[in-house]
Structures are given as structure tokens and as C-alpha cells.
């Protein structure tokens, strides 16, 4: 991968991590994100319109997590779904977010609140998808 692409992927990793966890990305995760893209050919062979969507989301700092459900498809995943999911895997398996993912108590009230936020996120994501013509 040339320097330009690595920089793009670094920006992607940073933005997607922020959309998921509202925090700065750990440096080790960026390295893994780049490494996975070197190993998995399918991440280098993505439809151009989907890559364009990702570029828009990253450059305009749109909420990727909100938009992604509206781009999900059966069978082969949308590029945004794959890349967001990659960050999720790297965080879970990198132990970086054990406190949120696997420990601590989430009472029913907070769970309902989190789900409600998720539903609001869905609505916002739909608006962003239409507003920016994301495909």
C-alpha cells in the first residue's frame, strides 16, 4: 500500500473508532487495522461507490455507526459494515474495551436508554444517508 492509502486507512480507523466509542483510537489498533487490510484481499477489492461513501463519511466526519445499518446487505457486506466490524473485532480482541464490552453492570433502565439512543441514531443515519446520497 502506498503512503497515500495508508494515510487514508489511518484516517478511516480514527474516524470509525470515534463513531463507535467516542474516543481517540489506540495507536496499536491503527497498526492492526492497516495490517488486516494488507492480509485480507477482499478489503482491497471493494466496490468503488462504496469506497466513495466511506471517503465522504470520513472527510465530512459523519456518524458512520448511524449510517451503516441503512447500508447493510445480505451476503457480501457493504464496505462500511466490514470496516466498522473490523474495528469492533480489534477492540474486543485487543482487550482495549473490556470495561464496556464485558464487565460492569448495565441495568435494564440504562439498556433501554442505550436502545433508545440507538433508535435515534437509526433515524439520524437515515437522514445522513439521504442528505449525502450515500450508497
Amino acid at each position, binding site marked *: 500500500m502506498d503512503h497515500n492509502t495508508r494515510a487514508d486507512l489511518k484516517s478511516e480507523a480514527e474516524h470509525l473508532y470515534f463513531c463507535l*466509542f467516542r474516543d481517540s483510537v489506540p495507536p496499536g489498533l491503527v497498526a492492526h487495522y492497516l495490517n488486516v487490510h494488507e492480509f485480507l484481499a477482499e478489503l482491497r477489492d471493494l466496490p468503488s461507490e462504496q469506497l466513495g461513501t466511506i471517503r465522504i463519511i470520513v472527510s465530512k466526519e459523519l456518524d458512520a*455507526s448511524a449510517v451503516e445499518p441503512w447500508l447493510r446487505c445480505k451476503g457480501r457486506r457493504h464496505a462500511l459494515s466490514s470496516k466498522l*466490524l473490523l474495528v469492533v473485532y*480489534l477492540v474486543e480482541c485487543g482487550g482495549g474495551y473490556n470495561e464496556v*464490552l*464485558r464487565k460492569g453492570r448495565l441495568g435494564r433502565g440504562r*439498556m433501554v436508554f*442505550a*436502545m433508545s439512543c*440507538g433508535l435515534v441514531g437509526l433515524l439520524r443515519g437515515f437522514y445522513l444517508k439521504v442528505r449525502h446520497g450515500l450508497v
Partner: protein
Amino acid sequence: MDWFDRVIVGSGPAGVGAARRMQSRGTCLIDAGDMPKDEFPFPSLREALNTGDAKAVLGQNWEMLANLSEAGRLHLKLRATALRFVMQGEPFNVCDAYDQVLLHGAGSHAVGGMSNVWGAQLLRYTDDDLADAGDWPFRASILDEYYSDLEGHIGISGQIDDMHGFLGGLSPTMPPAPIGPAAKCLYARYLSNRSNRISQRLLLGRPRLALATAPGNGRPAHSFGETEFFTSGQQGLYTARLTLEELKAGGNITYLERHQLLSWRESSEYVELDLREIDSGQRRIVRTRHLLLGCGTVQTARLVLQHYNECGRMLPFIDHPPALLPIFMPSMLGSELPERSYPIQLVGTLPSSGRRDMISFYYPGGMLWSDLVPDVPLPMNATIRIMRALLGGMLVAQIWQTSRPSLGNSLRLDGAGSVMISYSERSSCTAIPELLRALRSLGAYSVARLASLSPPGWGFHYAGCLPMRHAPRAYETHVDGRLWDSKRVRVIDGCVMPSLPAKNHSLTLMANSARIADEVMRCGY
């Protein structure tokens, strides 16, 4: 040239089931002998995640991300580095009615075969099961002595409960595996509601597992470290490899590893096998009085078709693709999750349906939660935050229904000799509405839309290519396992099963191969 009284090809459940009945130096077990190239270095998934080493969990080459771009590209149990060895044999494809490939599969060359990744439910077929499935040439009770022998050898955990009549079999010798909060609650409500006729609609019980919940049979107890998706070498979990190791250690069979059967020739006095040593490529000839083929349904069918030089001939093919249905218990959401667990929590059936469906209830918390994230219809950041609470009140019902041969489902060889499996006919899961109604009365909920049907080929309960008959025609087998026109070549794996009851066929595979082995010992030639 080597000479043996009996040769068994394949070290999976069928092969070792037969080998146990034919223990002597004159019995040779041949297999390709693949072993894991890597081991999962952690005793539990939690410890692995706590290291913070993503590559230690996901693989040095990110093997666990095999489904990142395409959901279901690789079965969840076949992704890990330490499990890739399980399916490295001859490839095959499963296609639908439009020749779209549903599954890229491969036969197993692994020591122990597909038992390396089984769920360890070992269940007897009953006479009712076989009568319902149809076409079996004998009653299940004929296998009773073999079932009992195997259950004693393996060690089965479980309990006598409402599912005992359905599951059949001996009293388990070890207590049942522990269950998580959702399963505990569901089962407790079931027990307290039995007087309200719930048991007329749904029977629930603890699973029968080849899993040591206490030390015994010379084996340690299982650690419930949630490593089922990462390794096959869990202590306390029985696989066919354990029996093979015991037979080898006792000097009770001759083991010829790292050899592949290419072909055979049968004369009136013996069968001559043409073998290839896998590592060197050298050929080796072995003669035997009796050949028992236990390579697994797909590979045995391939060998038989190649033997008779039949490209294009279609053999019946049966699989058990299950339906999956997530179930939620609102009262249990947010419950404390167990530190250790085993996936299968409860088993059930629907007695009023008139069918003999088998339902296994799984706890999905003992796997990578990232595997579950895409299935939740919410933004991923919300899903991540609620996942822990969700899993406290969640089970996944895996619904198995009886599978029978069907004209649209077949196995054949193409012009290049590769296995092609067409699976164009599958029945929909008719159990879901009834299951939902029964579960609602126990405070567990779901909707049919959340159900997903596994693609054909994903059940990995393959069977039916060379079915047993009392009067077999071409490409069928005698009840004693012999190929229709053979005196000395027998089939001992799932190929011979004429239909598949809803329960998994693993223990019956072993029992039937043991029965056929006894036929060989008694045949007098």
C-alpha cells in the same frame, strides 16, 4: 506387501466405533492423519481476551476474520487457526437449484474427523425416531447394546428429566453441564408450569453431552473455558481422537497414519488397497480380508463412485441444516453473565406437533461478541453497549427437523472427478410458530422474522448416499454394511443411513459402525 485381516479407513466416529469392536493387531486403521498445526494457547476465552493481544485471538493471519466481508463464508467453528486442519480433504461444493454455490466444503482428513468440531451431543435414536424418519431396515433397539457400550466408554453428562423418553438411553453417569441465567430461568419456569399443561406443548430438559462434568473414564473434567470456537483439544470433551489414542496406546490395533486410500480391487479372497503416503507421495499396497469405509459420507461416496467409474451418477444426499431463532427473556436482561459456560444449555421437543423435532437452546455469550453484532438491527455503537445486558436474557434455539431423501438433493462426480452436491429442495421450518407459542407462556419471546435457515451443507450431518436396504439395488448397501455387489467391502459411516431423524446422528454412526464391525467378526470368512 502388508496384510491385515481387516482394514478400516477413517478415524472419525465411525472408524473408531468399528475399531473398538475389532481390536487386534490384525485390524489396521488407516487415516490421512491431519493434526492441528497450532494450538490455542489459552485455557479460556476470557484469559485470551484479557491479554490484549488481538492476533493471539484472531490469528496471526487474521483467520478469525474470515467472515468479515461475507457473512457465513466459513462456518464459525472452522475459522480458527487451530481448527483449520479439520476440513483439508478433497473439496466439494453444495449448490442450490440454480447452481449457485451455497458452501465450499472439504472432506476431513483430520485425526478424529468432524468430531473435532462437534457439539458433543450424543443421543440415541429410538424406535419412534426411525419409524418417523422412515426407510430404516431395522429397529433402533437393535443398536441398544452398542449404544450402552459406547455411552459407558465415552461418559455422558446429563440428567433424567422430561426429555429422557425422547432422548432415550442410559441414565447419564455425570451431572449435567452448568447453564446460564436465561436457561436457568426458562427451565425453572417450565418446571413450575408443568401442571398448566405446558409439557403437552413443549418438553424441556438438560442436554446429553460427551462432556465430563466430573473426572472419570481416566479423563479430567471439562473446564468450560468457552474455547469451542478456537480449539478442538479441550480436556474433558470427548472426540473420536481420544478413542484412537487409547487403542494405539494399548497396542490393540495397527495404525497406519498419513495414508490416503486411492482405490481398491476386490477378489474372491481379499481386497487389495492402493494407498498413497501423503507426505512422500509414495504408493503402498495393502491386502485385507475386509475393507470398512468410514471416511465420512462425502468422501466415502466419492470413493465408491470412483471405484465404479461413475461420473454423473446421482446418489441421494441428506443434510440437517438447522433453523436458528434468537429468543429473549425480558426479565433476565442485564443478568450477571457466567464466567464459564458451554454453548448447549437446554434441549426440547414439541410433543403435540406430531413430529419429532429436536430443539437445542444455546447460550451465545461464550463466543466472540463481535460475531453477533451484525445480526442486531441497531447501529453498532448501540449494539456494543447493550450486548452484555442482552446476552443475560438471550438464548438461540437451533431447530432440527427430520430429513429424508429428496429427488432434488444429490451427490455426484463431475467430469474432473470432483464432488458436486446439489441441494435444491429443503422444507421450511414448520416448528417455529408452535415453539413461539410455547415459549411465550414461559416468558420467552421472539418473532418468526428473526429466524434464519442455515444453508444446506451447514448442518454437517451428511448421510444417505448409499442407504441400507434388506434387498439393496445398485449404490445401496446391505444391512451388514456390504456394498450391494460386494462380499468384502463395507460402508460404516453416514452414507448408509437411509434418512435422518431430527436428533444428530453422531452416536448412531458409532453404534451402527460397531454393529457392522460385529457382522465382520461373525461372518466366518
